């Protein structure tokens, strides 16, 4: 989506990126201070809370750690607000185009559903008001927060990673694909790129995010079938309706019980012989204790209340419990996101 921010909005977003990068530099220096005290991945306690307590105690007087926390807190609270402000500066000029892009081959079907508490009661990523917090929050999150902040502060190619896991699937002839947790359409776009002949459906509880996914699709002339709802309960989709079910980076936003329900529903809506591939944050067990603390600390203060419980999950037995076979969980880039879980519904 082509647009230009005004000077103030651009400068606000650039500032958030610089502050976040400075926080990362300070994080490394804080860890160097710990190493000088002989606190390393090898000496940290196994229990995560004990790890937090030890590090908080030993770095309590460290100006570097304090500054790291201040900068992190600033970004966590302010990045979304900076994006809102940047949007308001261009609102008058861009809204007609955003409304025009609602019309096209991609449809949104709204359903009556009870939003789960984990979603309705939590402002993920400390996004003020939650995903549906403002009228154009889908554009603000998908185009401003995601492309002008997240993609610049997270390591690696966060868009390329989506294509990577899809290209590793055993087939290239999927005709009907369901994405659970469509949000503003970043993974959906990867699906459309990798499987251009497939009919793509998506489900997400946020209507504001789906509206942005719809714009993204319509701009490219794509015909996605989008629905409001949650992956744990998808009565709008018949048994055996899809030959691939996928999701990207949604599991850490929900409790483990919801993840189990999603595996069960994914299994139900898959055709016999269909594939399931989902990706989420790297597993805690695949990180050393310092790296795991670093990610847990960032999640704790970054509006990720379900991170610790879900990043610690072994999803292989959960997928098998739902009925999947040939299940394997793996991390294509060791020590980094994403963790990928694959399974197949028996033919």
């Amino acid at each position, binding site marked *: 989506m082509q647009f*230009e921010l*005004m*000077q*103030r909005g*651009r*400068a606000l977003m*650039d*500032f958030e990126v*610089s*502050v976040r990068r*400075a926080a990362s530099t*300070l994080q490394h220096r804080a860890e160097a201070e710990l190493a000088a005290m002989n606190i390393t991945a090898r000496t940290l306690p196994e229990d995560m809370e004990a790890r937090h307590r030890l590090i908080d105690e030993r770095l309590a007087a460290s*100006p*570097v750690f*304090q*500054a*790291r*926390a*201040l900068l992190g*807190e600033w970004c*966590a609270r302010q990045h979304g607000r900076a994006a809102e402000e940047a949007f308001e500066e261009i609102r008058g000029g861009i809204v007609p185009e955003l409304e025009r892009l609602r019309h096209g081959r991609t449809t949104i079907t709204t359903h009556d559903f009870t939003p789960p508490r984990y979603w*309705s*009661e*939590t*402002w993920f990523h*400390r996004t*003020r*008001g*939650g*995903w*549906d*917090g*403002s009228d154009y929050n889908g554009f603000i999150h998908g185009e401003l927060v995601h492309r002008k902040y997240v993609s610049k502060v997270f390591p690696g190619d966060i868009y390329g990673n989506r294509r990577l896991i899809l290209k590793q699937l055993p087939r290239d002839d999927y005709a009907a694909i369901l994405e659970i947790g469509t949000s503003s359409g970043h993974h959906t776009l990867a699906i459309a790129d990798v499987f251009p002949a497939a009919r793509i459906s998506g489900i997400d509880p946020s209507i504001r995010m789906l509206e942005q996914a719809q714009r993204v699709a319509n701009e490219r002339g794509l015909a996605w079938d989008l629905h409001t709802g949650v992956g744990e309960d998808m009565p709008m989709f018949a048994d055996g309706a899809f030959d691939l079910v996928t999701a990207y980076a949604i599991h850490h936003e929900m409790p483990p019980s919801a993840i189990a329900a999603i595996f069960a529903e994914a299994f139900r809506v898959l055709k016999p012989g269909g594939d399931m591939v989902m990706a989420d944050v790297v597993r805690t067990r695949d990180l050393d204790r310092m790296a795991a603390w670093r990610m847990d600390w960032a999640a*704790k*203060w*970054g*509006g990720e*209340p379900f991170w610790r419980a879900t990043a610690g999950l072994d999803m292989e037995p959960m997928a098998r419990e739902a009925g999947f076979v040939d299940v394997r969980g793996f991390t294509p880039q060791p020590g980094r996101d994403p963790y990928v879980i694959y399974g197949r519904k028996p033919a």
Partner: protein
Amino acid sequence: MSGGADKTPERRILPEARIDDLGGAILALTREIWVLTDRQMVLEAVLAEEGIDTGRIDGYQPDEAMTRRLDARRQRLLDAVLSALRAD
């Protein structure tokens, strides 16, 4: 705005003993803001004297070289604040 809330716990990062450092950081920022404000007012006056519409500033899109210069200048500003917080 929909329901829900930011569930992240409140925290106090800086102890009271560091309030002077915080004051120093604010003054460092104030100084930088003033230097930039002064420069911007001078710049817009010079541009106007040369007959250039300063409204173009709002819509200006920096190229790669300008982006690098802006990145470096922004880092200098941040470093000044971090220095006041003794994290330089």
